[in-house]
């Protein structure tokens, strides 16, 4: 008995270094809730933002220092894919935290739990990036999502926020059910032996022909469950409402970090676990990708609300990224998706920073609120234009580079029809992005400009510079993407 517990302890100590960032995040977040909440009075609550950012910076350092390997009964794997997507999650969270200050200052209550929830959620994302077992994927998804349900409903005085949280929660719980059911089917199909992705890949290949329907349903249900998490059509219904109702910094978060983690999981599940049974999922997934591009871009055209527009546009962007998942070469696919996601996080956070700035004036929800921004705040409007054109993939902005690299891969892998569809729908997307640009530049302004918070200025400036010059540093971007590998 002692021998067993000794062995367990050894294993734990041996594997702990794989999840140092997560452990650090959880410890700090717990301490923030108590006794940390006593540290600052309500008047000083804005100090939590820099502290959270510091925690995120340390997490980022820890992510880069973590050694590679597999542990916890092969539930978690630290490799290039994990590290790369973990960095993106930290980046996305940092952007959201920096943009939260103004909103939280306007609330009366203490707000430390807001930051703690973000950190808890982030730890879930970091687990999800490296989860190499269907069970650990399920746990990580839940840890990540439950924190976000609460954050979406954080503005409890506002009906839309609560409604959005409720909707997101119900549909999220439903999709988790489907996911876990799919997992159980696959467990059965594999002979009740394993849920580990690598083993599953072999077990499914050996599965008798009679269980092929079982495998197919299992794979499809996992696909549906994951599709919900990244809001791919037709599992996207929650996303425009949740995006619109959530506090805008949380919308920023939802559009970036959980998507990165979700895509990392999809890449790993479909690239390693289900690689052998790709005939089961390639067709459904390509329909999902195509439908996301079409519906996301077309539905965005008629939106009046900026947040809904960005929600639909993010559905479309997920559709593009699924092209990378479809790649027959999971390694190259992961690299292209990572690059796209990194670029998407930068430009999307930049765009949301401008929306949040306008919200400080009680505006920014509607696209009309952007009118005359080019006259009132020329530099800010220019930055917004850069973000929007980059989202539309207009060269030489870096968004084009991401699209180019992704679509290049898709054509190489033979998905020509889907790529043509992606490119044509991205031409459609130019229409609604330019709609915002035309509000900013071709309409007369109303009201006075108000000053902008330092954090927002920093984020907008940094993001704008990155988007403007990113393509020139293409080789560096490709070098980084080259470090993404599936072990």
């Amino acid at each position: 008995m002692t021998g067993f517990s000794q062995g367990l302890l050894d294993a734990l100590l041996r594997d702990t270094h794989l999840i140092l960032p997560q452990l650090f995040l959880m410890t700090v977040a717990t301490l923030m809730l108590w006794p940390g909440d006593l540290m600052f009075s309500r008047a000083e609550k804005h100090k939590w933002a820099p502290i959270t950012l510091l925690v995120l910076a340390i997490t980022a350092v820890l992510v880069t220092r973590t050694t590679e390997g597999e542990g916890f009964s092969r539930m978690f794997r630290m490799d290039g894919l994990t590290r790369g997507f973990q960095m993106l999650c930290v980046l996305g969270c940092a952007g959201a935290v920096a943009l939260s200050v103004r909103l939280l200052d306007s609330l009366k209550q203490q707000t430390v739990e807001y930051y703690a929830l973000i950190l808890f959620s982030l730890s879930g994302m970091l687990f999800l990036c490296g989860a190499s077992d269907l069970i650990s994927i399920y746990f990580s998804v839940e840890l990540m999502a439950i924190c976000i349900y609460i954050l979406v409903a954080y503005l409890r005085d506002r009906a839309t926020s609560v409604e959005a949280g409720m909707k997101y929660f119900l549909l999220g719980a439903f999709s988790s059910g489907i996911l876990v059911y799919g997992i159980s089917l696959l467990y059965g199909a594999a002979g009740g032996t394993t849920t580990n992705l690598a083993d599953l890949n072999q077990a499914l290949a050996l599965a008798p022909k009679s269980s092929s329907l079982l495998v197919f349903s299992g794979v499809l249900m996992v696909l549906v469950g994951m599709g919900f998490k990244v809001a791919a059509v037709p599992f996207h219904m929650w996303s425009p409402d949740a995006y619109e109702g959530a506090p805008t910094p949380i919308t920023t978060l939802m559009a970036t970090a959980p998507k990165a983690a979700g895509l990392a999981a999809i890449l790993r599940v479909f690239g390693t676990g289900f690689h052998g049974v790709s005939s089961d999922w390639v067709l459904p997934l390509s329909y999902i990708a195509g439908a996301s591009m079409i519906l996301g871009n077309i539905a965005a055209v008629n939106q009046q609300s900026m947040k809904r527009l960005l929600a639909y546009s993010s559905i479309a962007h997920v559709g593009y990224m699924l092209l990378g998942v479809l790649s027959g070469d999971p390694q190259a696919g992961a690299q292209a998706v990572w690059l796209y996601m990194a670029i998407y996080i930068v430009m999307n956070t930049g765009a949301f920073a401008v929306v949040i700035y306008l919200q400080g004036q009680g505006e920014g929800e509607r696209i009309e609120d952007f009118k005359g921004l080019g006259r009132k705040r020329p530099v800010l409007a220019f930055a917004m234009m850069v973000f929007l054109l980059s989202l539309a993939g207009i060269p030489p902005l870096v968004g084009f580079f991401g699209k180019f690299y992704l679509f290049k891969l898709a054509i190489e892998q033979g998905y020509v029809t889907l790529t043509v569809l992606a490119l044509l729908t991205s031409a459609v997307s130019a229409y609604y992005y330019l709609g915002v640009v035309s509000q900013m530049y071709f309409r007369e302004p109303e009201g006075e400009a108000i000053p902008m918070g330092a954090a927002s200025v920093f984020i907008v400036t940094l993001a704008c510079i990155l988007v403007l010059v990113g393509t020139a540093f293409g080789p560096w971007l490709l070098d980084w993407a080259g470090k993404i590998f599936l072990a």
Partner: protein
Amino acid sequence: MFTANTTLMLVATFLPVLGALVLLLVPKDQRRVFEIGSLLIMIASLLLSLPFWFGYDRASDAVQWAGAWNWIPALGVKFSVGMDGISLLLWLLTTFIGPIAIACSFSAILERHKEYYIWMLVLQTAMLGVFITQDMFLFYLFWEVMLVPMYFLIAIWGGPQKLYAAIKLFLYTLAGSVLMLVALLAIYFLQHQTTGVYDFSLASFQAMAPVIAQQSKSYQTLMALAFFVGFAIKVPMFPFHTWLPDAHVQAPTAGSVILAAILLKMGTYGFVRFLLPIMPTATKELLPWFIGLSLIGIIYGALVAMIQKDMKKLVAYSSVSHLGLCMLGLFALNPYGIKGGLFQMINHGISTSGLFLAVGIVYERRHTRMIADFGGLSKSMPIFATIFMIMTMSSIGLPLLNGFIGEGVILMGSFQAFPWAAVVATLGIILGAAYMLWMFQRVMFGPITEVNEKMEDLNLREILYFAPLVVAAFWIGLYPGPIMAVMDAPVRKLVEQVTPGFHAAQDLAVKQAIAAKLGMQGMAAPAAHHDAAPAGHEAAPAGHAAPHAEPAHGAPAQGGGHQ
């Protein structure tokens, strides 16, 4: 990395955008600074570009002043620049039109000066960039960047329907170019499969022509169509032309000038540079369609122009017709046709710019462009009437002026290739003369109204910006040789790329014809027979089946067979 000459070329290209960055720092109420500053920048860029005209080696068909920097080695993307004669002409046309477009804006642009001149300068660099790149990735970059400033120029300073026109231009062109991007990538991978390297350079794409020709027919057709649509939208060819009248009518004068003079040429340049050399086989397969669309464009553009009540719309539709003629020349795929098409691109740039400027002049004075509102302007505006007449004549192809040369050469080329098409095109040219002269007559002659009597004639600034166009129209019309000489070698190379052995066959045919002639004379005067024989011997090694011309009756039959 780059030689001194290449660097100079890059400086001339990027000077406008660098100037724009400097102007960005000037406070926005300094209207004069923007006007004069941007004019000086454009003139500086023009002056820097002139040495290239003189330094160009006309005997060589190579890309000159080539330079490259390994930008993204992993993808085979190079920042690679250089020019041959075709690029050089269009590049010079762009630097030439630049100052004119700025100078005509001084009185037309009444608000938001800072943004306007900055966008103009950015646009200039993007356009110049398209003509110097030797890398497909870089080409696509410049090609798309161009759209953004144009969008703003139309959407901010345009007419009442400006937003609609601007977004239409943007989306139309974007949709075309993304299709082209797919085809580009497909060829890029095909190249990787055959050669094992990733390379975006234009030369390597052109070297792919034989490999592409071996692919399945549907592959070739799809590739060629993707390129075709991308460029045809830009030209614009019928039925992709619908954005053009909107964009032209709504754009400010300078926008129309640049649109007509340079932007449309991007499309024709694309055909010459990419579609023809990269996919000659597929082009030839689809040629009847391309020719048909060119002809419909010529006739349809002319007929629609004829019924226009708005002068600007009339000129816009005349562009559809004229560019149809350019395309007809290019698709003749022989030296005359291609040279004529290229030549007409330059001419159209000069004459249509002049016409749009003229429309801008009357619009600034009367705030209307309706033909019916005018009449008798030659009385109140004699200088203007003279210049307008020169531009009209240049546009309809009057001898002594530039248009005549271009149209003549195109007709020669297309007659060699498709006689019936040349006949239809001639009809279009006649229609062109009809609608232009009819407009000129209605605007310039006839009874004059009181308002029109008070219209002021051109001022010095206006005369100054018209002057280069007038000089160019006459100079090219009287002395087209130098421009033709610049095109000679590259067009020869292009024709060889499209139809390998074309020149050898043609030379052979000519020599045989001469030999035949001399041979016939030889029957009368045997002495001449000795001259004929070497000609035949020379032709034979050129590798073509025809046995060398033996005297007398054998030769004429062969010579005839080649025609």
